[in-house]
């Protein structure tokens, strides 16, 4: 059975979309469980058996059934469209991620650029929400978000480009196939450059996703819930979904760029499993940071970005380029 490529892509997109939504739902559960263990708690336990397996479903149902409140002074159109505008890029980033050789929506030859570009669009939905709510907290939150995302987008891009330089391609499947062999993952390669790049990538990711300790835009003690303070019900669910989808997407990308993607021992069909495990490992790293650190001030955030992370990432990128040029095409 052969279908036209467009139809194939549509089917793949449908599958991936649903898989992502499902994954996001259970990633939230994972995070809650993980956090609970870090704090010597049990976490969600009662809904579903065993260990609250149905908790995400229950949450989703609850949110869908809740009343959809729109503030009277809100910029209605912007307010209503914001969750969609926020969610779409977050989900779109999965379009170019291959889960196994040939298994993905579209393995673009500019794959990583597409990922970065689309994830940069997330900010539009964010400040739409902040602005549309016509709420002081929401607006301040949006401004902080703009500030922070401008600051951390550059280091994020530069560190993500280190594997691109090492692999010599922007195509994500190519990057994975450049990491074959024992200790072939980029995190182990290039005389420590890889592991440094991974660390920088993690920091930049956390900041770009506005998570603790860089979560001043939704600092509960000052801004209640940041730009989504006015949202409720289904729209709130969409925003949450987008946020976790974005975290998951960057986790997948991190696993793909630095940890060899689907590469692993065992037969080929184990590839997606390996990939998922590695992505969850990255996700848990991020979560670990979230539950271990306290929030830092806005000026500290900016200082870390411009004075530390950005120079470091540029140096890393240049060092990688020099390493590749020095080796004369050999594996670095």
């Amino acid at each position, binding site marked *: 059975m052969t279908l036209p490529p467009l139809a194939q892509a549509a089917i793949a997109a449908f599958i991936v979309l649903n898989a992502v939504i499902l994954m996001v739902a259970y990633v939230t559960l994972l995070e809650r469980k993980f956090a609970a263990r870090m704090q010597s708690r049990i976490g969600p336990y009662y809904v579903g058996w065993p260990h609250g397996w149905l908790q995400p479903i229950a949450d989703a149902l609850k949110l869908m059934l809740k009343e959809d409140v729109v503030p009277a002074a809100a910029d209605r159109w*912007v307010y209503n469209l914001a969750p969609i505008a926020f969610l779409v890029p977050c989900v779109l980033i999965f379009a170019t991620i291959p889960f196994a050789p040939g298994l993905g929506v579209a393995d673009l030859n500019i794959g990583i650029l*597409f990922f970065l*570009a*689309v994830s940069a*669009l997330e*900010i539009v939905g964010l400040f739409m929400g902040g602005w549309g709510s*016509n709420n002081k907290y929401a*607006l301040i939150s949006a401004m902080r978000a703009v500030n922070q995302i*401008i600051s951390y987008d550059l280091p994020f*891009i530069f560190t993500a480009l280190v594997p691109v330089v090492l692999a010599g391609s922007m195509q994500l499947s190519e990057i994975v196939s450049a990491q074959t062999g024992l200790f072939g993952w980029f995190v182990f390669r290039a005389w420590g450059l890889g592991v440094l790049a991974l660390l920088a990538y993690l920091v930049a990711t956390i900041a770009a996703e506005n998570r603790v300790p860089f979560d001043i835009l939704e600092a509960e003690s000052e801004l209640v819930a940041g730009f989504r303070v006015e949202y409720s019900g289904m729209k709130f669910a969409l925003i949450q979904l987008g946020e976790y989808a974005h975290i998951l997407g960057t986790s997948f990308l991190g696993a793909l760029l630095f940890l060899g993607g689907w590469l692993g021992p065992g037969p080929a069909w184990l590839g997606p499993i390996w990939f998922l495990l590695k992505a969850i490992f990255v996700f848990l790293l991020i979560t670990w940071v979230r539950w271990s650190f306290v929030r830092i001030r806005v000026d500290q955030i900016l200082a870390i970005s411009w004075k530390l992370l950005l120079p470091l990432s540029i140096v890393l990128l240049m060092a990688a380029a020099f390493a590749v040029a020095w080796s004369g095409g050999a594996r670095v």
Partner: protein
Amino acid sequence: MTVETVGFWLVAAVLLASSLAVVLTKNLFHAVLYLAVALVATGVVFLLLESPFLFGVQLLLYAGGVVTIVVFAIMLTERLVGERITQTSRHVVNGAIVSAAVFVAVVGFLLQAGAPAPVTERPDQLAGLGRALVGPYAVTLELLGVLLVAALLGAIYFARADD
């Protein structure tokens, strides 16, 4: 009716509509959002023109960068909360006439030249771009870097607080 043609008409419609909205809407913030739509639509036009790299750059720099900066500026210069930001236009008729004249002149000029034969053989765009940027356009690229640094410094100088 190929896919490209359908896509073109769709994107063209979106692009024109959002562009018109940018220049006609009263709400400045909405105008910026429409601009974001127009920019993304332009990116899709690039995709139709088989320039995915440029599509990525367009989204990353324009939609991600420019729009963000503009929003930031609006937030800094307008009253934060409460009143709707409205903006008015002036001399709409004059502007329409001038714009129409420019459009007619440009299009008339372009159309008088014959369409080139469609090219079927196309080189690898990404590698070619890379070589072009460090080859014949290397000096331009360096100059661009200088320009960006200068612009950055200028912006910092202008926007810093008086102290």
